[in-house]
């Protein structure tokens, strides 16, 4: 890697930012930021949510304009007027929140982004297939976006940039939805791009990845550059401290627990997906005990959404038995009835499912908290609802001007802390969390992990479905993986390895028979199953 650095640094600078300053009302988002990226360099931009990374990227991509400072593109000063100009210059960007039209196909979406350069759709479709295969991110160009998982949608966004003639690729938290194997493939892709002379601006909170991939790093905190370093040489701790300041705890090891009696039992759950492109669940068996966290690993689109919908009650089953809460079949109960039995749920989409974007935090508290005595005789108890929302904000350190702020104006990490807090403060018996820390900064992720562990220690059963395998190893007590609608047997986290879980994720495991599953549960359990 260092070989490449020296090769590129001797070359021409692709992008240079000089003293970029951006003032928003009440917030100095960027304060005299300097940044240099050479041709073919992979440059990391590190920082917490709210550090000003997004603002900086938006200015490079022409979404907003700096108040002061200069942007130099290949040595000459430019004013990037809008994203289409940025694209024409050869700058591609993959946002953390995807901008895709759900009802259109992959090809149509990419054609829209390319505008007049798209040309013939069939030809473009073939190009998409070729490019995606070439970079190991296989995509069917004719699929509709609404039928794709988050991971697959990201591939569309990356491929959208790659089908153009690209000189600088900006990636905002790209690895958060990928499996370890996929991350490796992505890195191969990115190194290949870099070797071809394309510069890459890589935004991530995962220091390990930055160390593995990036030649240089610029670290932002509170809108200011706090340091530049070569990640491979600088220690992770040093980089983390530059990011979050010295007073924030960054990493922890959590003691593992074994749990008590089974709360959630999924037995022989077979469910054909309503979505023609979805994944049907095939004889899924697992259980989660009170006082333990079960992690389900897996690549996006392998049946997680279907499983989660069957657990939340969004998709009702044909019979009540396949999903049981504390021995009681709940397959025919709707989400509200399941909540009454102690379910809390953190969905994959924060905005648009977990929270209503346009509504205030108070209203979003009511969204799932209505069973907590916030409604009297059909009328909303405004005072109590506000108190509850304030308690969530205080207890979970949600950074927001006040509880009247709309959910959509919170950063991803803060909104996730709010949603997790809202669910946990309802004292659930079972918490199902999908991708709880996707795209969330280290500080918020640590807070969320701590909250989950605390809830576990209070005796709740917790199911975490995540594509972040490091996270699952960090917080889960037992682990299993989902692949093509089938679930691997669960193993205690301490008795397994990333390699083994990685194999499960590709479908290499013995499908357990239901009787065997119950047998395993009985063996693991001293107390009886109700």
């Amino acid at each position: 890697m260092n070989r490449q650095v020296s090769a590129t640094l001797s070359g021409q600078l692709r992008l240079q930012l000089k003293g970029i300053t951006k003032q928003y009302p009440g917030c100095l988002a960027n304060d005299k930021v300097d940044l240099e990226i050479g041709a073919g360099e992979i440059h990391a931009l590190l920082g917490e949510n709210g550090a000003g990374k997004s603002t900086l990227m938006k200015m490079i991509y022409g979404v907003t304009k700096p108040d002061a400072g200069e942007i130099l593109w290949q040595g000459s000063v430019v004013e990037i007027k809008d994203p289409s100009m940025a694209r024409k210059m050869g700058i591609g960007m993959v946002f953390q929140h995807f901008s895709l039209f759900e009802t259109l196909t992959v090809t149509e979406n990419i054609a829209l982004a390319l505008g007049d350069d798209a040309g013939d759709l069939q030809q473009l479709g073939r190009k998409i297939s070729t490019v995606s295969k070439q970079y190991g991110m296989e995509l069917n160009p004719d699929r509709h976006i609404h039928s794709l998982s988050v991971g697959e949608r990201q591939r569309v966004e990356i491929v959208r940039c790659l089908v153009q003639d690209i000189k600088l690729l900006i990636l905002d938290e790209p690895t958060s939805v990928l499996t370890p194997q996929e991350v490796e493939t992505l890195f191969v892709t990115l190194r290949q791009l870099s070797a071809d002379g394309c510069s890459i601006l890589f935004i991530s909170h995962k220091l390990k990845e930055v160390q593995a991939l990036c030649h240089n790093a610029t670290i932002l905190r509170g809108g200011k550059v706090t340091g530049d370093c070569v990640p491979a040489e600088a220690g992770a701790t040093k980089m983390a401290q530059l990011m979050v300041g010295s007073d924030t705890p960054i990493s922890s090891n959590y003691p593992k627990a074994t749990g008590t009696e089974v709360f959630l039992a999924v037995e022989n759950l077979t469910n054909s997906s309503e979505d023609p492109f979805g994944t049907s669940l095939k004889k899924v068996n697992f259980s989660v005990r009170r006082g333990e966290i079960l992690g389900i690993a897996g690549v996006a689109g392998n049946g997680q959404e279907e499983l989660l919908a069957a657990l939340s009650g969004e998709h009702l089953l044909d019979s009540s038995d396949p999903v049981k809460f504390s021995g009681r079949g709940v397959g025919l109960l709707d989400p509200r009835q399941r909540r009454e039995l102690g379910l809390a749920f953190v969905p994959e989409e924060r905005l648009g499912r977990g929270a209503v974007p346009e509504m205030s935090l108070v209203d979003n508290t009511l969204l799932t908290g209505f069973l907590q005595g916030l409604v009297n005789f059909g009328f909303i108890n405004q005072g109590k609802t506000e108190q509850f929302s304030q308690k969530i904000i205080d207890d979970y350190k949600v950074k927001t001007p006040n509880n009247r702020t709309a959910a959509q104006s919170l950063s991803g990490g803060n909104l996730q802390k709010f949603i997790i807090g809202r669910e946990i403060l309802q004292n659930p018996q079972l918490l199902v969390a999908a991708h709880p820390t996707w795209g969330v900064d280290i500080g918020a992720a640590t807070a969320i992990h701590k909250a989950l562990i605390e809830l576990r220690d209070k005796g709740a059963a917790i199911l975490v479905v995540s594509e972040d395998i490091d996270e699952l190893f960090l917080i889960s007590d037992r682990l299993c993986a989902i692949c093509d609608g089938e679930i691997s047997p669960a193993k205690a986290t301490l008795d397994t390895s990333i390699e083994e879980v990685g194999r499960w994720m590709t479908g290499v495991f013995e499908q357990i028979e239901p009787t065997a599953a119950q047998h395993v549960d009985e063996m693991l359990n001293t107390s009886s199953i109700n």
Partner: protein
Amino acid sequence: MFIKLEPRGEASRSMSYLSPLLAGLLTLVSGGIFFAFLGHDPIEALRIFLIAPVEDLYGFGELCVKAAPIMLCAIGLAVAFKAQVWNIGAEGQLLMGGLLASAVALQLMDVESFWALPLVLLSGMLGGGLWGLLAAWLRTRFNANEILTTIMFNYIALYLLLYFVHGSFKDPDGYGFPASAMFGDSSLLPILLEDTRMHIGILFALLAVVVIWVMLSRSFIGFQIKVLGLDSNAAKLAGFKHKRLVAVVMIISGALAGLAGAGEVAGPIGQLIPSISPGYGYAAIIVAFLGRLHPVGIFFASMLMALIYLGGELAQIELNLPLAVTSLFQGMLLFYLLACDVFINFKIKFNRPQISATLENS
């Protein structure tokens, strides 16, 4: 493409409230120009159109007579629109309300009971509510688009009404005219102000505005309706029952439109005739949006719309203009409102070809 609309990102909140006022102002200016082209003094014509109708107490009474059905329909529509249920069928629901109310009133011709009027009004609400529920059921059961079904139901309702008014409801002593007998006194809405036609229907309308306001801002069902409209996935995850909510909003908006219809036949008309509404149900759609789906806004927008109806009638008498001038003003108002909204939410961009030219040089 040479002209592009680009989203402005965050739309200004104050502008979104100003937009109806701006639309009203532009309508006035255009109306003035329109009158001038027809050879009238624009100021005088606008005075006749907008001020003369309400210069006396009788005129004010007429304003309330017209505003009541519009307000009832519009506040009901606002509930449905909040849930993103696009009920375009207030007109048909109003007609069905009028029809069922008439059916009951004709049975109570000689009854001298206090309960006659409530019964008539409730049947009106029932007629409109069921007519709305039918569209809700088609949507939730068969996924039939409610915009299309409610529009079609408007015509079905109209022809049902015509069938009865030409058939079994026709007054046997009415010399063959297509109209029912005049209703009995106990079935008629009492007059509020002497020497005007202003009846208690306006009080029902104001009550409906207040009740819906409370419902939308304070009740849990109102909250569920808003969540359903803003984010149906969140509503589903929270366990709000989609089908039930669609049915509820369609019943509410249908019942209020039905009440408006009952108020017409049991109010200023006093019998069932072929044309009980000059398009109140359609005007209410404009009113609901002009009022920004907010009860207070709908109150003022209803008054304005009623004034346009009155002004159209007066312009017909004093300026010899066709009654179509009413529709013209309604149309302009909606057009300008939508146009203003577009400019609030989007900015116009003209494609400048020189950008790509400079890039190729760099």
